């Protein structure tokens, strides 16, 4: 057991329930890492939740801010954290002290759903840290990693000063979303070769201009006439220019790029590496919120209603779950959306409502009574939970019928009335809007284009505009953070109000102007 876990002993009656729950879950086909449940008081729960589920993190006010919101919310009776589980081996999950038996059972069932998801969804493979030599099971010792990260930061804070380190972390956090979630994680290469190679023209030796071989000096002017020499010189200069463009292909892992090539002091490097490592750890969870919560809710519902609840508990259970799945106007609830999608998939694959024949069928009556009795629902569910993330899940499984049944709509801001309004219930637009929100976790696509812009070692980034502008004031601040790390001017190419725009910060002045 990790030495950093809280190690509160689970009371025997809860341990018994856990064993029963795991049996039911396995009976349905769920397969999960060994899971440890701990019972916490409400303020310990709030603390752990502020730390993202971990007992220890690096010192920073952002966790204090999270705690302020959670504890205030709790104090005023607005919300209560029921469950918290982390992607780790073994998985650690927290139960709130004082919850009723029904609630604890519900939480356990829900947690087992989550852990099965962590284990089997492909997006979480990036959080593997190796495999157990004996069992071949993946190792995810993240409690230790987080605690180690905390130690690293604390040690540097002691040497360099907490304010300095905290300020630097603030700037790294501005860059936290600049990772490439599709690339398997690779730790940064340790050398600083980047900057030294491109450190200005003085240090670069002027290469010899290639000339044709001349045997006799007086022939020089004829074999290599000035015009020819001029052309050659220009050619090699161009090639040199091209070679100096770095990276060759644009790079989405901005944080990784900075780690490899920015002139960072040792402590800065360590701290930035911590921020980047953790960003990669959390990325899969952000990409699968709907699927994960839907999966856990689907299973807790099944386990509780079919196996675990007796008649005295069923009403309380229903009361509780109704709260979790409630949807207020103007929101969508990932738990609700998730579970309904899974139910829809199960239903369709049981009835055979998929495939070319189904897609082509126009007859409403036929569609409504379509039932090929294939019984493939359960199997399809398990397949889906392994192979998709929210974006591909929605793309694949959201149907017009579903959108209509769930009464989904898009809303947008109406300038004239100065408020948000319902825009449309049309399937294509709802799907489009949802995908937009989910793609890249709702973050814009930013790339490193050139690390030696203008041959002055300046950093050039590009924003791939997909229909929505960046928030410019924030963008300026991020440029400031980038300059702090890159130590040279940084420029961003984007589109603002339909015009190609350049934003630039050189350490003292901000520039914004249209580009041709």
């Amino acid at each position, binding site marked *: 057991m990790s030495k950093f876990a809280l190690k509160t002993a689970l009371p025997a009656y809860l341990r018994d329930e856990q064993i029963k729950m795991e049996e039911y879950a396995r009976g349905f086909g769920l397969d999960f890492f060994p899971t440890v449940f701990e019972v916490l008081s409400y303020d310990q729960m709030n603390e752990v939740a502020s730390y993202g589920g971990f007992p220890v993190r690096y010192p920073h006010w952002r966790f*204090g801010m999270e705690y302020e919101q959670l504890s205030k919310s709790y104090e005023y009776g607005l919300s209560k954290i029921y469950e918290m589980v982390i992607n780790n081996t073994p998985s650690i999950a927290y139960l709130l002290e004082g919850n009723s038996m029904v609630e604890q059972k519900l939480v356990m069932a829900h947690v087992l759903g989550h852990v099965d998801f962590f284990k089997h969804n492909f997006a979480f493979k990036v959080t593997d840290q190796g495999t157990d030599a004996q069992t071949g099971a993946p190792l995810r010792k993240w409690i230790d990693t987080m605690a180690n990260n905390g130690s690293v930061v604390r040690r540097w804070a002691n040497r360099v000063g907490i304010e300095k380190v905290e300020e630097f972390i603030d700037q790294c956090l501005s860059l936290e979303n600049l990772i490439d979630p599709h690339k398997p994680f690779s730790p940064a290469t340790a050398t600083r070769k980047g900057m030294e190679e491109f450190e200005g023209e003085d240090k670069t030796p002027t290469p010899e201009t290639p000339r044709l071989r001349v045997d006799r000096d007086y022939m020089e002017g004829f074999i290599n006439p000035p015009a020819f020499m001029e052309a050659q010189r220009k050619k090699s200069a161009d090639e040199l220019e091209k070679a100096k463009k770095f990276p060759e292909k644009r790079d989405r892992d901005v944080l990784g790029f900075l780690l490899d090539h920015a002139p960072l002091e040792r402590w800065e490097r360590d701290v930035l590496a911590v921020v980047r490592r953790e960003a990669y750890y959390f990325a899969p969870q952000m990409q699968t919120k709907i699927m994960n919560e839907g999966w856990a809710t689907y299973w807790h519902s099944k386990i509780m209603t079919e196996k675990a609840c007796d008649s005295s508990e069923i009403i309380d259970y229903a009361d509780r779950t109704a709260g979790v799945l409630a949807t207020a106007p103007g929101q969508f609830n990932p738990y609700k959306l998730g579970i309904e999608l899974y139910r829809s998939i199960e239903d369709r694959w049981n009835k055979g409502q998929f495939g070319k024949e189904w897609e082509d069928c126009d007859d409403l009556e036929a569609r409504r009574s379509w039932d090929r009795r294939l019984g493939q629902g359960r199997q399809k569910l398990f397949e889906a939970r392994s192979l998709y993330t929210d974006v591909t899940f929605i793309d694949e499984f959201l149907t017009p019928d579903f959108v209509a049944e769930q009464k989904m709509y898009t809303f947008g801001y109406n300038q004239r009335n100065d408020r948000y309004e319902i825009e449309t219930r049309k399937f294509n637009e709802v799907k489009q809007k949802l995908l937009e929100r989910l793609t890249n976790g709702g973050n814009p696509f930013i790339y490193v284009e050139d690390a030696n812009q203008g041959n002055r070692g300046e950093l050039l980034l590009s924003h791939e505009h997909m229909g929505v502008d960046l928030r410019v004031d924030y963008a300026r601040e991020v440029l400031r953070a980038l300059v702090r790390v890159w130590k040279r001017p940084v420029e961003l190419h984007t589109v603002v109000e339909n015009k190609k725009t350049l934003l630039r910060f050189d350490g003292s002045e901000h520039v914004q102007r249209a580009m041709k």
Partner: protein
Amino acid sequence: MVAVALRLTYTARVSLRIDQDHGRFRSIVRGRIRQNLRKYISQGELLGRQGKDVVSIPIPQIDIPRFRYGDKQQGGVGQGDGEQGDPLSGEEKEGEGGKKAGHGEGQHALEVEVTLDELAEILGEELALPHIENKGKAKIVNEKDRYVGIRRVGPNSLRHFKRTYRHALQRQIATGTYDPKRPVIIPTRDDMRFRSWKTETEPVANAVIIYMMDVSGSMGDEQKEIVRIESFWIDAWLKSQYKGLETRFIIHDAVAREVDRDTFFRTRESGGTMISSAYKLAAQIIENDYPPAEWNIYPFHFSDGDNWSVDDTLLCIEILKQKLMPASNVFCYGQVESPYGSGQFIKDLREHLKLDERVITSEIRDRDAIVGSIREFLGKGR
């Protein structure tokens, strides 16, 4: 004045690791450190329900800037009823845990400012007031009844509707007598649930503040207002340090009498000033009601310093030395400035009692000086 206070009890708890990060966050929000983060601080709010009212709880937030999309263009996806063009009511956030303020129409939120506890805590932090060392044993227990339990028998006035309904529903479903088409629930005797109470013992209210105010002719409205403000804050702070706090009010001119809080703040000017009358009365109250071994006693006296005579002043010193000081944690004298008074009393106090650490005097020139005065009074943590 402070708006709705939801809780008045001071809850202590074991310190957690997060307290360091939390403390840092609060310091930043108050502007005491990391001034460069000020521009990112915004006032978010939590919206909640208190019965049928919507309650708004202010929550400060520091938004770290990132590359992100501009807000207004985005909109989103929702679920529920409504026609095209209908406004959204409530917040546009995803499921659980969003924090943006609502754009809803027709929602009036009761602003919950901060609890008195938090105010007191902020005051304590701002003034760096140390927490007070508790004196006295918690021998005398106070018993209070709180309605937190449920039992199966009880008077009709204590019926718990929701629980009774739930049990009746469960019974009917289990026995198959529930008809979803005609959902009529009839509870039987066994289904009935009633609220019941628990008798809780509260540890002793072991602190008492004795406020004394000079209401002679020379104390005007402004002076009394200053006293009122200062005593409110002192009261709030001390209340947060003690589980129960008693307060006694004495007003005096040439004669002293005990009054209630309202009267304390509203009495009009009258006659001449004999401070000894107040001190005598205070000493008597202590003797009658508050054995010093078990009580933390805080006498506060506010005056404009214009006592009747030197003799009376000497008498006051006597009473202080013999009766009041031996019984008190601190004795605080605040002198407000008055156009009529000489302000001599504070000088005399200081001269005669400068050796006693527990006597604290403070001049309160105007409203702005109140904070400094409180710091002087309570800064020593006694």
